[in-house]
């Protein structure tokens, strides 16, 4: 009946052949059923993934830990916060997450300088993503930035932050460009996904059209080294051409893909997918 055989040379059952499909996608397929319902095993597997994604949103952000790790890399940092004073505030009022607290504004003004780039590490919607993935990414990126001879601002560690908070941080620091590393909306299969947003001439009022974004940076998604290479290339191009956003995006992707192909590395992640469902603002 079937050409497919298992180790014992017994023809595969239909269930086994459906189970084989599951190897082709990370989607939850070939789960089996108990009557019309999900088998207990899968019910619990889903429940655990949801619990981890929920925890990623509400896990307390630990900026002091990140500051210590930055210091170990030989860099300086400073801690800032948005105008959102609690997680609930943050989730209900995205506008508060996009503007600085008065104290943080003063702190940044005091550190004002002539910087090429300000790197910001922000909790966003997943502290888990930041605690697991921000420092390894910075460590991979740092030598590439040093090779470009860039003047770096102290790294800002931002709590209760949305992407656009970087615009105000960059403006107060006097940076030509900001790179915001921020925890993305956690997916059930990816509670630890980090997003990197690059914005030239940061100032309040910019929209996402003015940014370049690399999404899904995590060990199970876009790995640190290729992400760093892609970011370094974008930073170099953005500073040279004096822009980020839609115009830069297309060319950079082509060039990077070409370069990665030369290195024989076809594993580059895609740029952030544009959902055709109504968009969520970060």
């Amino acid at each position, binding site marked *: 009946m079937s050409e497919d055989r298992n180790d014992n040379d017994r023809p595969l059952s239909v269930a086994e052949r*459906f189970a084989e499909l599951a190897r082709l996608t990370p989607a939850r397929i070939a789960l089996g059923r108990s009557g019309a319902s999900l088998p207990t095993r899968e019910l619990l597997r889903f429940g655990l993934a949801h619990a981890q994604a929920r925890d990623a949103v509400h896990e307390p952000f630990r900026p002091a830990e990140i500051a210590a790790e930055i210091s170990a890399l030989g860099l300086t940092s400073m801690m800032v916060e948005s105008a959102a004073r609690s997680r609930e505030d943050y989730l209900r009022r995205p506008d508060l997450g996009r503007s600085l607290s008065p104290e943080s504004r003063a702190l940044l003004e005091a550190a004002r300088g002539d910087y090429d780039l300000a790197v910001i590490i922000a909790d966003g919607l997943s502290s888990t993503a930041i605690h697991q993935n921000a420092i390894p990414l910075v460590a991979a990126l740092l030598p590439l930035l040093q090779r470009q001879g860039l003047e770096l601002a102290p790294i800002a560690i931002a709590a209760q932050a949305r992407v656009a908070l970087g615009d105000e941080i960059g403006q107060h620091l006097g940076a030509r460009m900001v790179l915001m590393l921020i925890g993305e909306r956690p997916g059930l299969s990816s509670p630890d996904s980090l997003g990197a947003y690059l914005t030239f001439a940061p100032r309040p009022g910019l929209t996402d059209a003015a940014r370049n974004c690399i999404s899904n940076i995590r060990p199970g998604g876009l790995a640190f080294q290729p992400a760093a290479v892609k970011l370094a290339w974008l930073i170099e191009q953005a500073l040279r051409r004096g822009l980020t956003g839609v115009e830069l995006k297309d060319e950079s992707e082509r060039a990077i893909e070409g370069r990665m192909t030369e290195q024989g590395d076809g594993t580059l992640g895609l740029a952030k997918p544009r959902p055709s469902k109504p968009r969520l603002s970060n």
Partner: protein
Amino acid sequence: MSYRVAVGRQSYVFADLKELMAKATPLRSGDRLAGLAAGSMEEMMAARIALADLPLKTFLHEALVPYETDEVTRLIIDSHDATAFAAIASLTVGGFRDWLCSEAATPEVLARLAPGITPEMAAAVSKLMRNQDLILVARKCRVVTRFRNTLGLPGTMAVRLQPNHPTDDAAGILASTIDGLSYGCGDAVIGINPASDSQGRIGDLLRLLDEVIARFEIPTQGCILTHVTSSIALIEQGAPVDLVFQSVAGTQAANASFGVTLALLQEGLEAGRSQKRGTVGDNLMYFETGQGAALSANAHHGVDQQTVEARAYAVCRAYQPLLVNTVVGFIGPEYLYDGKQIIRAGLEDHFCGKLMGVPMGCDICYTNHAEADQDDMDTLLTLLGTAGVNFIMGVPGADDIMLNYQSTSFHDQLYIREVLGLKRAPEFEAWLQRMDIIDKAGRLTLGQGGQALLAAMPGRAA
């Protein structure tokens, strides 16, 4: 004009119709974010009491979004069917609710009335209604559409099979599609949200779906949920486009943020119809909407998010869609904070759409930063199934690995069929029986008849 109502010794004044509508709305985070929500529970009830006394015809001469500057308002007013409206022209909003709940409002009467109902009328009456009213009345509104099968018949519910993949991998998408078909999903559409914007890749996905549908002679339609301009271009290149997709919202400015105008949607409809790919009908537009979309584009004109959402259905209605899907919990907790708000919004959207004659389905869904979980989705699914929703989503294991949110699963649709006895589109149900995937009662067969579908996988002879 302003509206005044006294509750005990307290007197409440609402400056205009849109303030009255906003403050009468059941609480949701998006209206708070916009600064439009009632300041107290009593103020909310005062607004509802005033709204109940408002003559329905007020909405025909008092626009919430200016006629002169908004083409959606012009569409609503210019296409209003006064003859159909005549049956309810003398009613107030409160009287309209009483009439809708009464035996006089039969499915036939409601179907004739639909072109006479503006979105603002539907939104206004929904604000006075409890969840049970929204279910009771929506259940009486049947909207039947056709392309390669018949959707929306009483006693049926269809499923969009949603086999998304984070890198649009063809084998991965095919695997999810076959798994979903083997659970009897896919009569509404097999619809992929592409990760890529590349025309070449989208063309490949269209051909992939076309081949699966042709190979097994499935009475359904495929769709890649890409921008309408992209679908038009692909049609010009000869790609097999069944349905033309677009996200839409309830104001001209919000639609501009999606890169669409009404003229462009008309162009999309005409391009789709030029293909003549439908077999039993030519409803071929697939629209998605969701409360909060206009506010997130700062294009809400001070109108509450539920009313703006109902206006989006007027946009949809103009293009005789096959499917209209409110993606209710996707946008996030700043618009709908928790399970209670998502459930209420899903019922409101479904009711308003159906009352206006739109083939409403619902992506019963939430994100991980909302205060909601799968139990809330079970509740909304059970309520919408009871209300006669045209279709829901079928996402593998309810976990969309591309869009990072949770919806309803292949198993969830089996559950609701089991509990409520809902059938699939008749042509699709017959196909599933021919394939030995379901039995005469509509239950999945024990013999796993879906094995024939495995032949679609490359290198796997059946």
